[in-house]
């Protein structure tokens, strides 16, 4: 219903005036819509804008606060209304529609060689649609296990490291050992089960989406794709080592139980450390562990945060220069620290501030080289496949309502019917 609204609004808003502009004295004003929301992150972004403005009297950047909650709808109407900000902060998995719709500028000719070479190709792949690059991926976060360090130590289990992580089988047996008497080895927050499952499945070699020679994408659910879902299912339904109540929860919802000693581990995004530092009871001993590894090691999918330039912006060159400024290695580190995430830039990743033991920055930084584009984020029809087929199928499987064969049937048979409509 909301989509229909937006489509009509798009038609209505067409032709409105643009946001950024040039004043009578030739001074350019660029609007930068940031989605930073945590206090430190907002401060870092605003400081950088201030520094840019102090050094560039001819190009002023105006900081505009956006919100993750409504960014897609807000951008869509802004693009169609000619009111889009010049510089756009978003996430790579939200860019496909905008890129294919012609709303974003192709950055290949706009960005300097320094920035292009600083960010690894696999990160650029997350913002590459067709032949163009429509965003600069700059922050990313792996999913990690945040563990009750005291509990884990007392259990005598081997503590995994990025060099020697747990296998999925080892992880399962350890969570089983840690469980009992109303306590669980792990609490999976699986409110959004599809991205969590697919991203982690890359570690076991699970691809799920396969592109044929003619460019068509089909879903295939092989043994490698089943490793992670089967582990999660068995933890919740066979071993009873995963809390059944958190399967429908978001990440933050698992924290009270984690702090209260109900769960030994919670798989969360790396940036959740900030909430843990803020909210954990005094003396609570926690640590970051790498997610379990499979046949493909610690590989996992991510959808980095991105900076794009509006196709309608009359000042694309200046907007790209601002992005280049914002993403200089030192500045990228400031943004990463503000958001408690990892920078994509190889120079920024070397910064000592990201290799400290404090808050386990070093553990996360060691995982950066294993991060790859989230599966299917550029597959057309993926959002519908995810919402109509995969989400209910995974939810039912994890709750024990259906078995693996039925999960496979739904993901593949029903899923391919959905994808086929987008690829005629």
């Amino acid at each position, binding site marked *: 219903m909301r989509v229909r609204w937006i489509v009509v609004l798009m038609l*209505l808003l067409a032709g409105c005036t643009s*946001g950024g502009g040039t004043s009578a004295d030739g001074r350019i004003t660029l609007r930068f819509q940031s989605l930073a929301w945590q*206090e430190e992150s907002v401060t870092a972004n605003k400081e950088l804008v201030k520094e840019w403005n102090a050094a560039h009297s001819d190009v002023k950047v105006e*900081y*505009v*606060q956006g919100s993750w*909650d409504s960014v897609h709808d807000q951008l869509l109407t802004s693009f169609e209304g000619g009111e889009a900000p010049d510089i756009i902060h978003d996430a790579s998995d939200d860019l496909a529609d905008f890129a294919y719709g012609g709303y974003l500028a192709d950055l290949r000719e706009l960005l300097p060689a320094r920035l292009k070479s600083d960010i690894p190709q696999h990160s650029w792949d997350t913002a590459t649609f067709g032949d163009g690059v429509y965003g600069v991926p700059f922050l990313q976060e792996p999913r990690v296990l945040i563990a009750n360090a005291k509990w884990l130590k007392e259990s005598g289990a081997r503590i995994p490291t990025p060099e020697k992580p747990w296998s999925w089988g080892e992880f399962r047996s350890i969570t089983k050992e840690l469980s009992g008497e109303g306590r669980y080895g792990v609490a999976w927050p699986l409110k959004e089960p599809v991205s969590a499952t697919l991203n982690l499945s890359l570690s076991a070699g699970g691809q799920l989406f396969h592109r044929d020679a003619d460019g068509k994408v089909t879903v295939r659910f092989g043994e490698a794709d089943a490793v992670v879902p089967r582990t999660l299912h068995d933890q919740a339904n066979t071993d009873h080592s995963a809390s059944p109540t958190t399967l429908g929860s978001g990440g933050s919802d698992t924290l009270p139980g984690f702090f209260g000693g109900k769960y030994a581990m919670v798989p969360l995004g790396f940036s*959740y450390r900030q909430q843990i530092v803020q*909210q954990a009871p005094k003396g609570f001993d926690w640590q970051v562990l790498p997610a379990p590894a499979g046949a493909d090691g610690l590989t996992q999918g991510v959808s980095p945060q991105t900076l794009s330039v509006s196709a309608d912006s009359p000042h694309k060159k200046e907007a790209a220069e601002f992005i280049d400024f914002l993403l200089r290695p030192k500045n990228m580190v400031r943004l990463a620290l503000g958001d408690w995430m990892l920078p994509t830039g190889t120079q920024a990743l070397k910064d000592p501030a990201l290799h400290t033991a404090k808050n386990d920055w070093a553990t996360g930084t060691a995982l950066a080289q294993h991060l790859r584009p989230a599966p299917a984020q550029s597959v057309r029809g993926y959002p519908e496949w995810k919402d109509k087929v995969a989400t209910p199928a995974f939810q039912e499987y994890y709750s024990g309502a259906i078995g693996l064969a039925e999960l496979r049937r739904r993901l593949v048979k029903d899923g391919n019917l959905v994808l086929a409509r987008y690829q005629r």
Partner: protein
Amino acid sequence: MRTSSKARAGQYAALLAYLVFLAFPLLWLISTAFKPPRELASLHPTWIPKDPTLANFRQAFDEQPLLHAALNSLVAALGAAVVAVLIATPMAYVMARHRTLLARAATGWVVVSQAFPFVLVIIPLFLVLKNLRLINSVPGLIMVYVVWALPFALWMLVGYVRAVPVELEEAAAVDGAGRLRTLVSVTAPLLAPGIVATALFAFISAWNEFFFALVLLKTPEKQTLPVVLTHFIGAEGVADLGPLAAAAFLATLPSLVVFALIQKRITGGMLAGAVKS
């Protein structure tokens, strides 16, 4: 018919349960707004914060321009309420007093318009706003809110006008009062509670509205409170709960204050339209 004491106790218990149910979100919001981060993530939440703090309010004000956003919301909501009532009152009077075919058709149209998908109402509004260059302006937003609130306001007011006995106006006319004098001195005071109730409805609708404000207002200095509140929510729905609760609590205050100040008038107004004289 007498109510037995048991039945009466049951009624009071049901009423109390209902009040608790209604009050729960607000009380929890207030409690959350004063809790430090560690208490927010406690496995055993408490109603009364053990270590109450104003830090959430400080952080909310530091991070977002709440006062400015509240002022924008206030201007938009008050503007919408005043304009909606100014337009709806004379229309409602005509529709209630002159029961012609046209008035009946107009009443029917108002009722039907409530069933239209929202988007049909907004189409002409966007075209008008675009041509008037009122996108990214609070006056433009007020226009949208007025059109949004008008049908229901009109519907409410027709009921209130009909509740004012026409015989009173006829008596005033017999006493020599002209049409305008009758309206000002006789009808308007009796209609006041209904007008207040209608204005309040329009005010609260506009105060809480999010989607139009999000789409129409582009620059930070124009944004309203509901839009600014979303800035405390991060990716994947992660929220900065303490400051969000503090800001949301502040956002509910104007509605609560307005309700508290004119509660009696509202009750009178609502009842006035409830039955035919």
